[in-house]
């Protein structure tokens, strides 16, 4: 607790001097130029957009898949078979994120081009699919990053959901089955309502990881001189990747402060997500007892 407060305090103290001399709106401007200390212009709009979009793509993909895997492992497979499967999923968490990044940038990104082109041209009526400020050919966009992130957060959501689904009271399960429910009906009427809050809390933990992921995103996303067009086929930086990309050049305290200000926003944001997860999990517990 103390360390969190201290970290927050450190971020705040370092960020404030830079924020005071920022010449444009910190929250709504997409511009980021900190080269000239006398004329700092930095805003986090695009960082926020890219961070949220990539994490959302990751969640949209990972949440259903994780739920499917967790249900399959806990209520369909015999435990003897389920254990090695669960182990394999957990192993995904052991892959270093830089490996995911390299794979995403070199293999997945170029391979996704046909799909990305299809979505970008044929389904452009959907706002998140229209427009792109980096080339589709390179695959260095939020779409690719989101898919890689979804794989990275899959194990954490699966693990939490599995544990929760396992805890479903046997009485309820047997009751449902005795009433003539099929296995799927049993899952729908007992396991899912019981495990919902744990599942959501697990997803929030995954979201926290996706928000803060650095190296993989940095390697995958290409940056663009154009501002974000609010499309998943944009490139750009997330908070974490922006800070990491500039870290070797931190020499002036004022321009460093600009990045620390971005870090502060990410800190608060992740904090809020985790608090939300705690709240959801806590509420679920209260209901169950």
């Amino acid at each position, binding site marked *: 607790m103390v360390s969190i407060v201290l970290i927050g305090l450190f971020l705040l103290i370092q960020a404030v001097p830079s924020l005071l001399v920022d010449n444009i709106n910190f929250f709504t401007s997409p511009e980021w130029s900190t*080269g000239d200390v006398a004329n700092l212009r930095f805003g986090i709009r695009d960082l926020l957009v890219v961070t949220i979009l990539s994490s959302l793509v990751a969640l949209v993909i990972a949440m259903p898949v994780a739920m499917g895997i967790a249900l399959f492992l806990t209520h369909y497979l015999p435990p003897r078979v389920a254990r090695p499967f669960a182990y394999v999923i957990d192993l995904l968490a052991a892959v270093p994120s830089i490996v995911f990044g390299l794979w995403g*940038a070199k293999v997945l990104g170029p391979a996704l081009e046909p799909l990305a082109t299809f979505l970008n041209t044929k389904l452009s009526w959907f706002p998140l699919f229209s427009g792109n400020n980096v080339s589709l050919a*390179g695959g260095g966009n939020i779409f690719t990053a989101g898919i890689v992130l979804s794989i990275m957060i899959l194990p954490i959501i699966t693990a939490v959901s599995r544990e929760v689904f396992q805890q479903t009271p046997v009485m309820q399960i047997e009751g449902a089955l005795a009433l003539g429910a099929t296995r799927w009906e049993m899952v729908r009427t007992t396991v899912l309502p019981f495990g919902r809050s744990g599942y959501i809390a697990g997803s929030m933990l995954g979201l926290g990881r996706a928000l803060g992921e650095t190296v993989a995103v940095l*390697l995958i996303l290409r940056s663009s001189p154009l501002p974000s067009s609010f499309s998943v086929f944009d490139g750009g930086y997330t908070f974490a990747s922006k800070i990491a990309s500039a870290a070797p050049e931190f020499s002036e305290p004022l321009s460093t402060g600009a990045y620390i200000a971005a870090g502060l926003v990410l800190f608060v944001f992740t904090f809020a997500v985790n608090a939300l997860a705690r709240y959801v999990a806590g509420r679920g517990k209260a209901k169950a007892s």
Partner: protein
Amino acid sequence: MKIQRHGAVLGLVAAGALLLSACGSDNNAPAGGNTTSNAASKVECGGKAKLKASGSSAQANAMTRFVTAYESACDGQSLDYNSNGSGAGVKEFIGKQTDFGGSDSVLNAEKKETDDAAKRCDGAPAWNLPAVFGPIAITYNVPGADGLALDAATIAKIFSGAVTTWNDPAIAALNSGKTLPADKIVVVFRSDESGTTDNFQKYLEAASKGTWTKGVGKAFNGGVGEGAKGNEQTSAAVKNTKGAITYNEWSFAKSNKLQIAKIINSGGGEPVELSTASAGKSIEGVKIKGTGNDLILDLKSIYATETPGAYPLVLAAYEIVCSKYTDAEVGKAVKAFLTVAVTDGQKGLEDAGYSPVPASFQEKLLTAIKAIA
């Protein structure tokens, strides 16, 4: 004793590895053993046993080779180079934390760096000695169009978005007989601040006859394309993306086997292929702006070279030293190190993607190094 020596070498290798990973632009192992004992005898070894230097990451790979050569030429002597960026290199030199600094650009008089450096040297002026030259390659990915010829004006148009397809008349005019696809050009640039970008833009400004209007600086100003981090990512992006073009340090172009454009220099004439010889030719013709032994280069004379067969896009990295060290021991060691660096150290430098200093320029460097006290 023997074990200690091994320990020292091991430590150096580890330090070297750290250095390389820090600058993130390595693709070669430190090569040793290319020093002849004959050449080594010319060096007056001695002085401070372990020098410290820091700065530009563009010359980190060359430094690793210099250190290896220095160690085999001067028994028991060594140098620690920390590639933490040009800015830090100058700062730490002025702050007396290092014995000399490495930088992509010379000391800036307007920022008082020249004065501060003289103060650090207790009144003796600091000298900028360009000991490392690295050609920048224009790399691209257009299957079936090897050896594309480009001139500065066309490159400027591509990197500022005025030319957007590969079969644009501007490119076709320079490449008669080649079939160029109608694909879109994907411009890839360095998203991090880098001396490579700075030199590339300076080249465009000096040689494009006014076509490049976006200015210079460590950040790319072209306003088109997509950024990737570091030489590794930009070269990988070109490799993976059809129709892409970027600028890379030579070593990355070679190791990724990318297509490298020939450049038509300001003299017009035949397109020049990037090679040690063609880069050396433009270094030979460089004019010096500095006075005396302060070898500040007039980079415009490289960028806008008109010599037939000279490759104009060459980056110079400087060693910033005191002309007179208060501590004579340090001066002696710096002198020995730099002597080795510009003689034995230059051997095989092209394998690391640099261009060895040509003989005529080497003489100038040696004269300056000899004058260090």
